């Protein structure tokens, strides 16, 4: 389907925090209580609209387990947005945020938009991490923050879409070099704002035959 832009996202965070469930809720609008452990990487995609423009989100869902860390690290490159997820019912997942953030900062491009997500907000009775703590961490590190529930779908749309809005604004401000695919942004064939190569060629930016 035609789109104005394609943004690449990556979802990271400890194992079991609900990364795959967030993706499934966003792409398929459903919740799967028992989910196989993600090994390696899985993909999802969905079209959203921002400022009247069709934007395709291409989302990479990674394995949270320590043993896959070196593989996961290698996927930061070329992402425009990252959802860093922790579980409000497990403090250790919050404590590990610093490590995740260091990893992300070190291996991604510097303009990558990072959204901090406190997942499982439906499990209020088992909460171990206060909302204020998450907000403070986000403020301190310059991240956007949101509490979500992949189970009830609360704030899930918003988390993905607000990240896209932030990226979109950065494009408008000229922060992102949209002609460099390593930034995780591709211009689609229907982009009304032609780059130097013109809209038609830009649509085929990813492809050249040999």
């Amino acid at each position, binding site marked *: 389907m035609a789109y104005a832009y394609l943004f690449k996202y990556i979802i990271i965070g400890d194992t079991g925090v609900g990364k795959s469930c967030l993706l499934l809720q966003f792409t*398929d609008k459903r919740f799967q209580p028992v989910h196989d452990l993600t*090994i390696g990487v899985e*993909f999802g995609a969905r079209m959203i609209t921002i400022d009247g423009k069709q934007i395709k989100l*291409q989302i990479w869902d990674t394995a949270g387990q320590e043993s896959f860390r070196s*593989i996961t690290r290698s996927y930061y490159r*070329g992402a425009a947005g990252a959802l860093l997820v922790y579980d409000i019912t497990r403090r250790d997942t919050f404590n590990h945020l610093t490590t995740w953030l260091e990893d992300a900062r070190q291996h991604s491009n510097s303009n990558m938009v990072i959204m901090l997500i406190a997942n499982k907000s439906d499990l209020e009775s088992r909460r171990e991490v206060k909302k204020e703590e998450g907000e403070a961490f986000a403020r301190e590190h310059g991240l956007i923050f949101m509490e979500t529930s992949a189970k009830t779908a609360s704030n899930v749309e918003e988390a993905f879409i607000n990240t896209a809005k932030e990226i979109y604004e950065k494009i408008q401000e000229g922060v992102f070099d949209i002609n460099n695919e390593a930034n995780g942004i591709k211009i689609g064939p229907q982009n009304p704002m032609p780059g130097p190569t013109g809209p038609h060629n830009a649509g085929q930016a990813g492809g050249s035959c040999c």
Partner: protein
Amino acid sequence: MLTRMKSAVANFMGGIMAGSSGSDHSNGSELPMRFPYVRPEFLGLSQDEIECSADHIARPILILKETKRLPWSTGYAEVINAGKSTHNEDQASCEVMIVKKKTGVQSTPNKTSSNKRRSSLPNGEGLQLKESTEVDGITFQYWALFDGHAGAGAAVVASKLLHHHIVEQLQDVVDILKNSAVLPPTCLGEDPETTSANSRTLTRAASLRGAAGAPGSPSTPQTRFFTEKKVPHECLVIGALENAFKEMDLQIERERSAYSISGGCTALIVVYLLGKIYVANAGDSRAIIIRNGEIIPMSSEFTPETERQRLQYLVSPTKEALVHLFLNIFLAYKTIEEDDLKFPLIYGEGKKARVMATIGVTRGLGDHDLKVHDSNIYIKPFLSSVPEVRVYDLLQYEHGADDVLVLATDGLWDVLLNEEVSEAVTNFLACCDPDDPHRYTLAAQDLVMRARGVLKDRGWRISNDRLGSGDDISVYVIPLIHGNKLT
């Protein structure tokens, strides 16, 4: 999962509508594609997922998710190249096929085998079939890797059709093979002398003429053929595999007038039939068995360097100059391709013998229209579609859970030695939960990761700061213990 289902339907329709799917490109001169570009069917990827996977910057390693999808808990992982071609030009397929004796009616490979495919069963359980459970057929397991060059067309076609040619070829000898199959499995793999020689021998020529399939006498021992030379039944299988490769190549040649089948491909296949593993190779992919830490090579590569003798013989000794010319042409060709690279950074230094995918191989399928650069000389006459086939008697050894057959395209072997691969797999499996259904896929993923490496300032790097592989990389890890369980 729903999207996956949708995509499966779409893929299926795409297969049926293969002709029309390529019609976007047809502007009079261009032919429709024989099959649309795909990734291996067993990965079960949607169109969106295929799009995501074609990321030359992050190079995601794709792995087999549903472990029951492949026979023997086989593991699989792949990664796309670093930018030398838009698509991943490696292809893979894995099937469990049943060979039944040919009926009187003439039929094409496509039609006869479409109803014999078990992989189309919804949950893949059909792939776990026990051997020879069919009343009148023989089951074989099939794993294949194809490495395309100058386009993905030939590799896609071969991945869709080669196993049907194998079925077709085996149909001619199925009766003879079956006669040995009814003997106790302990006799399998023994010298044919130990069993009734009369019932198991026939001349290769007779078998190729199809005499074995004489109608009306399925249970009669093949006494008519105890002639001058005895042919053990594994030679019949080898012959069938060789012929299947040739037929596949001929089909590509025939169909290129009606379809666009771009480029050529190498082919490395494994067939497990009646207690024996047959590895057939044409090209520069490689298969090794790792048994108790020991490496048993199961293939050799066919490149201009290794095939000098065949080429020489081909042109006759008096025309040695032509061979020199030919070899030089190969080298020249590679150089040109190298210059064309879009990511010279990744390929630009410390060049190992791995040169561009184009035509660094002397055996394979396709390439019928390939000409020497800037000339009218066809290269095809120098290429051969005949594979080298090696046989491994699976039943002669008691295999452990960590004994595996590793198949991989040259993307792996260009940067890792057999010993490194063996050590990596052995160490990985030793640390892996023996009951983890994903263990062989994780081992395959680990191998791909070791060969791809990580992207640093100076390109993809692997251990000891060596250059990683910028090529497409595809790896099967096939546990051999499952072969023992089958008997």
